[in-house]
């Protein structure tokens, strides 16, 4: 395999992950895209989804992110997120309850559009973890 791409996952509170990988797939606003070494410089918004880290052909880690930004420049990929959960850390047992709670709060939010939107984004994030959180 050719050169590796340096991948950094950063949240406002700390640097979550810094690693090297052969390929990283990030959920861009307009579709997922894979970043390999030598990728063209890109700045992209992210939608809630999964960041997949590949070692060769193998998926080594999957991290769920709740939207953010990705920056690619000369063999380096930086992903800025507000919230991220590694697949192995997802608490499947607690998910349905958290989703139900969130649904209730969306009901309560009613007219408050800004609040409802942020809650709905959160719901999408949680549901995503539920759907694709199962091992393949």
């Amino acid at each position, binding site marked *: 395999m050719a050169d590796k791409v340096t991948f950094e996952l950063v949240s406002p509170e700390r640097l979550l992950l810094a690693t090297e990988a052969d390929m990283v797939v990030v959920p861009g606003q307009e579709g997922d895209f894979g970043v390999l070494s030598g990728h063209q410089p890109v700045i992209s918004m992210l939608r809630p989804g999964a960041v997949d880290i590949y070692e060769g052909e193998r998926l080594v880690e999957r991290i769920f992110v709740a939207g953010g*930004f990705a920056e690619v420049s000369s063999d380096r990929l930086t992903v800025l997120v507000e919230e991220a959960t590694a697949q192995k850390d997802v608490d499947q047992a607690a998910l349905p309850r958290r989703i139900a709670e969130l649904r209730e709060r969306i009901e309560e939010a009613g007219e408050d559009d800004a609040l409802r939107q942020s809650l709905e984004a959160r719901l999408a994030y949680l549901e995503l973890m539920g759907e694709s959180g199962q091992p393949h």
Partner: protein
Amino acid sequence: MPSLKSLRIRINSVKSTQKITKAMKTVAASKLRRAQEAAQAARPYAERMERMLASLAAGQADNDNAPRLLNGTGRDQVHLLVVATADRGLCGAFNSSIARAARRKAQELLQAGKEVKILCVGRKGRDILRRDLAKHIVDSMEATKGKRLAFSDADGVKAKVMEMFEKGEFDICTIFYNHFRSAISQVVTEQQLIPAAVAGSEPVDLGGAAYEYEPDEEQILDRLLPRNLTVQIYRALLENQASEQGARMTAMDNATRNAGEMIKKLTLVYNRNRQAVITKELIEIISGAEAV
């Protein structure tokens, strides 16, 4: 001359004060370490966001339709001062020096015929500024809601600032906080938040290639700028938190030392008095015996 008993009581009370200041110093020292770690951990995100913003802003410099968060409203009539202080006192000149800087700036602006609005973050700043700038304070909130400073605390401040900005209630926003240099030295800093000051960081050299934007520059900027605002506020609050603990540590260290000196002085007076009383009693006994 104070009686022996009252001196003894005095010494004991200073001793217990010393115990308290000593404990506060230890607590502040450990909190300082944690605050410093938090400030350090938050640095990568802020740095990378700044870099991204710099490369985006470079392409927007002469765009008239650029977001107002970046280029401002084109006026500088109404200023919003965000004064970030601590919720608690007993930390030396920490709160008052921030308040002093904010007050000076406010007076300068008022003299220049500008309008000033103040948003207080932290209870102490509000208490100090309320005395003479009460009518300018638009709102105040506490610096931290929970035990530790979280990103959501900064988000709350940002939400308020953005709400006011969108209503067109101010043109320029500046935040005041204490920059943490070391445990004994904190520097009051004012930083402009709106319009965003991005000149500080150089865009990355891409070796001739240009960034591709997805979806497009405007949309990314629209999302990135408010985010950047939160990050800047968060950073200021983190710095402030570390500074507060540093200032408290120094203040309490001084207080402990002063209490020690005071105890020494009082003990000296106490001993001298005790001796004087003994001598007096002896004289009385001897002269009594001689008289017989």
